[in-house]
């Protein structure tokens, strides 16, 4: 019933609008003078462009300055400072250009609106003007290009040897981390065919002795002020690691491991103090469409000083210890070492040295 009334109402409104349209049309014809070039509408349109551009620019500057803190994210990485500086340099360059061009354009639009008494200026070309506005943008852009290139080259340069290596794995719809373990500090080999449903979610190759002390984490723990090399892979479809506060983004590609190196400059606690938000947490998000749960692929990130970070690492149980069934896949001659490395057997001290080569 209600919807019927609404429907009738809508139809009535449309009919009335149509009638108004017809009447105004007929009145126009009766007056005999259909809207000529340079009529009222021409002035209205010209004025509206000015209102629009002035209003728009005021709103733009007002919002951009007043709500600055609302739309910017704090930075917590070394290269992030650099890319943000580049971002804001580009912003200032382009905003200046944008304002000048807008003002000039909408100014012309208002100033040169139709006037039957005037004739437009026949001005088909001018090589000096063309050259000027080819060369000036070219110079400005070259500056932006070269600063950008230098930043990009530094950011993508190979990581240093002693960088902290951590593996991040994307799958529908969760992230997992694998740490190389405190004993060998090397990630064990993996192969996707070894992945199974019962526990070997990494596809860990237990023939590789580096895999024994690897451990899994559902939180990404990072040391502050130390270079970190994220090794990124995906199990099923494309994902993308996005650490917004660190200005880090890199796709996770099945079949093609990727990586990103960066250095975090603020611990979680420091960030909590700085933002005045005691619940602040760093986060890792997915930014490559990956299916139904794309929007929910969140991994908490914890940044600590190096000491607590090392302590945390040492306190983690190795994957093998959590999944002792997989000891059967370890070659017989390495079983002893595996047990020790995985922390399943007490380290008998000196005798280990021989096992460890």
């Amino acid at each position, binding site marked *: 019933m209600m919807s019927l009334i609404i429907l009738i109402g809508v139809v009535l409104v449309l009919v009335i609008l149509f009638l108004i349209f017809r009447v105004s049309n007929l009145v126009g014809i009766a007056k005999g003078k259909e809207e000529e070039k*340079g009529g009222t509408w021409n002035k209205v349109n010209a004025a509206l462009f000015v209102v629009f551009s002035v209003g728009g620019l005021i709103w733009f500057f007002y919002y951009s300055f007043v709500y600055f803190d609302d739309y910017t994210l704090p930075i917590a990485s070394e290269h992030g400072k650099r890319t943000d500086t580049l971002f804001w340099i580009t912003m200032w360059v*382009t905003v200046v250009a944008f304002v000048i*061009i807008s003002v000039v*354009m909408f100014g012309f639009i208002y100033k040169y609106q139709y006037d039957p008494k005037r004739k437009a200026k026949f001005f088909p070309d001018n090589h000096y003007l063309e050259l000027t506005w080819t060369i000036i943008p070219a110079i400005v852009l070259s500056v932006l290009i070269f600063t950008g290139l230098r930043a990009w080259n530094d950011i993508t340069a190979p990581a240093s040897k002693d960088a902290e290596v951590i593996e991040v794995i994307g799958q529908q719809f969760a992230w997992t981390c694998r740490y190389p373990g405190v004993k060998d500090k090397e990630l064990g080999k993996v192969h996707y065919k070894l992945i199974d449903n019962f526990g070997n979610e990494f596809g860990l190759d237990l023939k590789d002795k580096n895999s024994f002390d690897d451990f899994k984490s559902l939180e990404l723990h990072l040391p502050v002020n130390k270079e970190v090399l994220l090794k990124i892979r995906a199990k099923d479809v494309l994902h993308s690691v996005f650490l917004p506060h660190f200005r880090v*983004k890199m796709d996770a*590609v099945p079949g093609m491991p990727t990586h990103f190196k960066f250095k975090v400059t603020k611990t979680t606690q420091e960030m909590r103090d700085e933002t005045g938000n005691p619940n602040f947490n760093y986060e890792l998000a997915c930014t490559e469409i990956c299916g139904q749960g794309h929007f929910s692929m969140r991994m908490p990130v914890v940044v600590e000083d190096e000491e607590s970070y090392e302590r945390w690492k040492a306190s983690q149980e190795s994957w093998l210890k959590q999944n002792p069934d997989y000891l059967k896949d370890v070659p017989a001659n390495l079983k002893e070492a595996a047990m020790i490395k995985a922390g399943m057997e007490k380290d008998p001290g000196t005798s280990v040295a021989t096992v460890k080569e």
Partner: protein
Amino acid sequence: MATTNIHTHHEAHADHHEEHEHHHGNFWTTYIFSEDHKVIAKQFLITGIFWALLGGTLSVIFRLQLGFPDMSLEWLRPVLGGWITVQGKLDPEFYLALVTMHGTIMVFFVLTAGLSGTFSNFLIPLQIGARDMASGFMNMLSYWFFFVSSVLMFISLFLSTGPAAGGWTIYPPLSALPQAIKGSGTGMTLWLVAMAIFIASSLLGSINYITTVINLRTKGMSFTRLPLTIWAFFFTAIIGILSFPVLFAAALLLIFDRSFGTSFYLSDIYIAGEALAHDGGSPVLFQHLFWFLGHPEVYIVLLPALGLSSEIIATNSRKPIFGYKAMIGSMLFIAILSFIVWAHHMFVTGMNPFLGSIFMLLTLIIAVPSAVKIFNYVTTLWKGNLRFTPGMLFSIGLVSFFLTGGITGIFLGNSAVDIQLHDTYFVVAHFHLVMGSASFFGMMAGVYHWFPKMFGRMMNASLGYIHFWLTFVGVYLVFFPMHYIGIKGFPRRYYTWTNFDFAQGFTDLNMLVSVAAILTLASQFIFLFNFFYSMFRGKKASANPWEATTLEWTTPRVPGHGNWIGEIPSVYRWPYDYSKPGAEEDFIPQHIPYSETPESNLPHENDLIKLETSDGEGAIVVEGTKH
């Protein structure tokens, strides 16, 4: 060369008479399987409008979800059925399908077929002085391939597993594996088949456009006398021919991977409890192939719009377009560069960073010709005598969007800055303004401007103004706030942001965007009413209502089959003789010889008078040797 031209011309003329006999009376050959470029243009336009409405509606549905996440969408159940969950929410997977189809529809079906298909078909023969396209039959096929493609894509919307849902870029493995997302089942198959047919349609069209522009120009219509619209369509067609086949290849390999177990794009995949046999493929390969079309595609969409607006702005400023040759040069430069910037979509895909540097360099260079175009538009307005017809308003809107959206491209083209901005709402804001809205406004400008020639009647101007202002303000309200949301880091294609602390807030802006989107879509109905009403009841137009110079305005009020009654006019001057000093009127059409306008001729133009008398034949030869 000259003789060939004349010869063709006579032949076309003869054809015209023959066809006149049997081209009346049959509804099917006149309106459905027509080979007349004007009818085909209208077919493209109407189909494009249908798709635009559908694509716009899809976007409003997902904007409801983003702007009003708590709203019950139960009332959509009669339309969407099972895609509304028990809680009265939009299904998250269907949300992705909506996003995907919105992108696909708008980019390919509206802004490629609807824009280029309409105006290339309509304007090329009319503006170069040809009876029709080089091959009317191929032209007809082009439309009907597009129609079949449309039908398939439309059917895919109604599948129980939904249409393709992996984003309009259909990156594998997501698009290759039905286990990964429901939309990658039959929906994706239909998507690929529809696109393959669409590509065929696009190629048939483009080949025709190029051939027609090269071969069927009338007497005196040298390349340097072509209106900028034709230049734009010409470049667009070349870009299309060179890039669409690559998308076809990409799609074909994806079909192989999906159906025949090959591994072009797939490797090392463990999904749904099993490790797949695919080995050695690379998902990044697909991205390279896709963007090898995908980036030129941006210019396939944009160049025609720029061409149309160049013409409209010159006409309504009553001034020659400033820097005609610079405009052609910048379009040529953009067209070339458009092929070597594709990987800027892939800075953070794990591609070799060195490639990233190269593509960043090339990408930012493209800003130079784009800037030149904007400066030339602004200078065209300077000291003009501006008539704000609806077409002119939409063209100014285009320039404004091109500026606002183009500027953010300088951020995104910088690979270092792009690390943070990639796949955030900043990108969404950027491309919707610079390519989506700008091209859409170009299309609207074209419809308002050439409606009198299409249907012989005027559209109601007042409704046009209202339509423009609502849409112009609406589009800015939709896309400008997205810059802020993007700088904050909100990722694209998210069903909701509630899971993340960093992406909190902006409920107000998101609501504003959604409301503006709804109002913008609603105001398109003003246009629709105006369009269809004026088609039948609009004021009858004069043959040249805008007092423009190009050839199409020398045709009768409603040009019939063959366009001109009697002989095709010859061309004696460039298309932008507006407000020439000394001339009585503020425009001199292209077909007026210099001998008739001694009062306004420039010195070198007086020299051309001698050549005009020699029946045009000599004129062409001399033109040829002169350049």
